[in-house]
């Protein structure tokens, strides 16, 4: 199945400025599997999203469609075929 990942501006230095990445995944895959697949070709991108334990970084949010995975099953949240996945940094700092 195909999933579209939307990349925030701050991380496009790791995608050759691509705003989106299309990822092929087995049916029934979750967000963890999506990130693992992304990380095969682009480890620098994925370690901005998760630490080396595989935990989502504190100020990074991942949405599957309109669902923040923190409100779902975390990285075990299932990604449906054709879903759009958004990586969104928290609005914070100074």
């Amino acid at each position: 199945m195909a999933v579209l990942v939307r990349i925030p501006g701050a991380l496009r230095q790791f995608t050759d400025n691509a705003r989106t990445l299309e990822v092929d995944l087995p049916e029934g895959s979750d967000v963890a599997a999506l990130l693992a697949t992304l990380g095969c070709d682009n480890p620098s991108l994925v370690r901005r999203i998760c630490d080396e334990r595989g935990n989502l970084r504190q100020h990074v949010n991942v949405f599957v469609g309109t669902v923040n995975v923190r409100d779902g099953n975390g990285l075990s949240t299932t990604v449906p075929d054709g879903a759009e996945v958004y990586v969104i940094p928290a609005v914070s700092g100074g």
Partner: protein
Amino acid sequence: MTKTMVLIGTRKGLWTATAEDDRQSWTVRGPDLGLNEVAACAIDARGAKPRLFAGASSSHWGPAMSYSDDLGATWIEPDPAPISFPEQTDTALARVWQIMPGPADQPDLVWAGTEPSALWRSEDRGVSFTLNQGLWDHPHRKEWQPGGGGQALHTILPHPQDSTQMHVAMSTGGVYRTTDDGASWNPANKGIQGSFLPADEFPEYGQCVHKVARHPERPDQLFAQNHGGVYRSDDEGTSWASIAEGLPADFGFNMVVHPHAPGTVYVIPLVADMERFPPQARLRVYRSRDAGQSWEELSKGLPQDRFYATVMRDAMCVDDLPSTGIYFGTRSGSVFASADEGESWSEIAAHLPDVLCVRAGRVG
């Protein structure tokens, strides 16, 4: 003419200051590494080309370690990440606090210290690092506590003549020493006070040592700026004695040794842990030329009126030129330099974000 570079790591990026006229005029460039906090940087002048290192971290995107082989024009972040905690530690890297190139006869050896407190060794000039398991498994680890800046290993002192020996220092844990190439570590804090501790003020470990330094020609002699207390050891850290008499205060973060004069050290005192300002709000460096028996105030060219910024533990350094240059950066975004061993100072950069680390050396 020698080209000298100062790396300036700040709360929001890395700047460089470069001089090609014996450190008389400086060209400041930056920021590199975006809005990342650069808590550690290093100039490795051992190879055919100087290699710059930066440990940067983003509150959003986490820590990273990069290097540059073109004096900062471009930065390379290796894949996989150079420093990554092994899975069995169930730990994630929070920040790189120290990058220490190894000796000249081991040009690919680089050390790093991190938060949480850990020592790392690279044998490929900083592209990949291995965790020192002996220190990581130390039974004291569960007792080490984060200081105000975090639970970090911030000082790495390889023995200048014996590669099996090393000292490290961490907040809050104290000084530890290995004599078996890092397989085992013992605390080396006897005589260092932990005035902030509720009970035993002279514990075996747990002191908040801010910085330790030693001269390569006197490996037995160590100097420490503690969280309250300035100390010297003449027996490789087995015991310590105060050398604070003659200073206006015994709190501070910096301890730097003169590279060509054993026994000459520099500190920047602050009033106290609960009053982290220069005494009398005057920015002054103090120098001892007799291993801490006496101190002299150095203030020519430094702000002497209502100056309240501090200097962080790694924001003071010396260069490697025959005539030693000394540098420090402040949390108010200034970098001061002295080309005459501290007698006089000039501001070589201003209005930067908080300066966290400064390193200087020849790059051409």
